[in-house]
């Protein structure tokens, strides 16, 4: 693992997500929707590094989610 500057990670809880799709409207490109209407993060998993210049959009996505399925986490935190 290479060292990188402190960054934020967008984290999706898939069991909480209902597929409303508001995250993709709030942050197009950071969050896309799959064919069933569920969020696809950059890299395809449940966690995506957010570049500093796009942090505001990621925050919008977090706050847009009616199911509270998204949150931002500092990369400094331990990763499971």
């Amino acid at each position, binding site marked *: 693992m290479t060292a990188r500057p402190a960054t934020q990670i967008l984290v999706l809880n898939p069991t909480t997500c209902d597929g409303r799709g508001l995250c993709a409207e709030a942050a197009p490109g950071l969050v896309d929707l799959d064919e069933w209407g569920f969020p696809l993060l950059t890299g*395809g998993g449940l966690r995506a590094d957010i570049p500093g210049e796009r942090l505001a959009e990621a925050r919008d996505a977090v706050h847009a989610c009616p199911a509270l399925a998204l949150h931002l986490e500092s990369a400094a935190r331990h990763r499971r």
Partner: protein
Amino acid sequence: MTIATTDAAERLGLSLRSSLAVHLAEHGHLPASRGRHGSVAGSLVDEVERSGLRGRGGGWFPTAVKLRAVVESSAARGRLSTTRRPVVIGNGMEGEPASGKDAMLLAASPHLVLDGISAAAHAIGATEAYLAVHRGSHLVPGLLAALAERAEATVDEIPIRLVTPPARYVASEESALAHWVGEGLATPVHDRRPFQSGAGGRPTLVQNVETLAHLALIARNGGPWFAGVGSPAAPGTTMVSVGGAVAAPGVVEVPTGTSVASILDRCGGPTADVTGFLTGGYGGAWVPTAGFAATPWDPDSVRAAGGVIGASVLWAVGPDTCPLHEMARVAAWMAGETAGQCGPCAFGLPSVRDDVHLLAVRRAGAGDADRLRARLGLISNRGGCKHPDGTARFLATGLAAFPDEVAAHLAGRCSFGSTRPGSPSSLPVPEARLASTDVNGRDFA
């Protein structure tokens, strides 16, 4: 490579059903307890570390690491915390339809498994201990009788309770099992692992029953004894569920690292030209026949050969069976086994089920096959548990292992004369569920 004698290879006593008296005559009592937090308890964890024991439920995770994680999670809580003391759950759920090892072990040597639960509970200071098998399992009467024998003889420091969660595939997953014991709902939990916060919020150790049986022998004989046979990176013996095109399908116990060919020979050898193997179970991987017979049966070697040892299922597909039909049957069942919690699983599995069905019945075009491959990539790494990932791997490796058959089906032909339900090497698929998803988990209570 370690070559073991037949005697050294059979440790788990699978040939007879042991009463407590027979069990104690054979193995003796567990080494005496010397207080819950005494040095002896700690020394079992050290002994397990020396043994190199890895979990036999499918993940092959180092058992000592898991034991320590529970102990540390418990120690990190305040002394007055009501959720400080750990819980132990013996996992005898065996959700893989092609696996039979756990049922065989629990029928033949229940006391070895129960000893393992007792020893693990003592080692980590647990105050609650459970053994879980599928609701309605034929094992229940025998296990209740075994527990009654132990209560009578007061062999367990804390009582072990038999619990019977619903017989759902994902209910075997360790977080689902802890969820069921704590809250009565056997759905997987995504955001915390059982060792951190499991049953009732307590640190929870979930171990496969075969792992616990090995642990009971390590408690008596020591780690170096355990590591005396098998592959150095995953030592000991392992049970293997062997099925399909072999003369005598069943469960065998062999040292890890035994070749696939030797395992098949233990089961009477192949009955026909084997066209491919399914390894690990329905969340496992298909491998083409060529060269696989020489593969040592241990996690690293099987993985290097393109397979997955998983729950130690080895299934040989014979020339009477179309692998694409097998994939379609299994995919339909796996789609019905979703807990319905996550979109990529609840919607993605029925979609790939439909795609592989079209392929099996020779109604798929090249575009359908491409869409199936794309969807398999899309449903992995996005669920709260590994159910969609396992199903995707099962299907993706199947498509890769049988490219000629995929091409034949796309051209409207089947090399195997289409399906023959009930053929000897046809995979076991339980009765399909009509309600494929139940987002409220009613089916899981």
